[in-house]
């Protein structure tokens, strides 16, 4: 491609006055036909190549940063996943610990209650037997022993019922 004199002059003026040069692939197809325009094209090509080299460098940097960013994102996702897993493991451990504590407490309460029931039952029965063996009037003691035994049995079943209820409720909560 050969440019006419007027176009060449306009391009030369533009370069001289404003420092603006042709750039891009058009520089590859223009054929210089005079020394001045040849120098202009040479300068334009040098500037274009320098600009493209800079852009290439920046694009490469962005590419590398992009790659790093992508890697960092992957690592972050992996770390998040690990944190989630750790969190659910801790939650599970905590739940087991809570249940263990509850069962220990229940065990203690039941043992204590049963000990009280058994002690009261044992003492009252011992007193009743003692009274019977001494041939003393056991009318009042007998009535009291009978009602006390009834109350103790009722309380024992009540404790057992409460334990079964709590157990059922815990199992159901686990299933839900």
């Amino acid at each position, binding site marked *: 491609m050969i440019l006419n004199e007027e176009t060449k002059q306009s391009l030369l003026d533009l370069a001289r006055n404003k420092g603006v040069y042709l750039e*891009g*692939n058009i520089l*590859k*197809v223009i054929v210089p036909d005079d020394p001045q325009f040849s120098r202009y094209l040479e300068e334009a090509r040098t500037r*274009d*190549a320098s600009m*493209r*080299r800079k*852009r*290439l460098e920046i*694009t*490469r940097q*962005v*590419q*590398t940063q*992009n790659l790093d960013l992508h890697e960092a994102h992957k690592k972050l996702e992996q770390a998040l996943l690990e944190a989630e897993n750790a969190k659910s493991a801790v939650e599970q451990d905590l739940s087991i610990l809570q249940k263990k504590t509850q069962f220990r407490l229940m065990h203690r309460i039941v043992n204590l209650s049963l000990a009280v029931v058994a002690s009261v039952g044992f003492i009252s029965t011992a007193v009743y037997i003692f009274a019977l063996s001494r041939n003393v009037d056991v009318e009042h003691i007998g009535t009291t022993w009978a009602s006390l035994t009834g109350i103790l049995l009722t309380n024992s079943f009540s404790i057992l019922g409460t334990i079964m209820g709590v157990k059922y409720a815990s199992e159901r909560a686990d299933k839900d």
Partner: protein
Amino acid sequence: MLIDSILLVDDESLFHLVFEDACNLLDITLQLMTVTSTDEAEKLCQKWLNNDMKKPDCVFVDLNIIGSSVDGIELVRRINVNYGNGVVIGIISSSTDKKEISKATAAGAQFWIVKSDDIEPRLMKFKEDYEGYKNKTIPFKVYS
């Protein structure tokens, strides 16, 4: 030899810029068309068939193109079978998997350029060999 027009099929837009600047600095081509999927590339191929658009002289296809219905090798095969006929075509990929390379050869790829930071020397060698690819006088080559 300056290649009139090149089509680059690659999903990575940043690589389009790298490729464009490298081609410009090495005086490889006058016109570079870029698309980001094999589907877009096939639409262009359809235009070549209908004579709505001039066929590029050379096509560079990435191996794995995210968001495309087919991979790069299948596109190479389709271009060769359905649209190509005379187009110099090859793969440009960061992969050096021998299985993939042999699959590309079977699909009709004429070259394989390994994509990396230092792509200019490979493109320069390709430019030197281009005439041979055009005349089908040189065999398949890997630029790594």
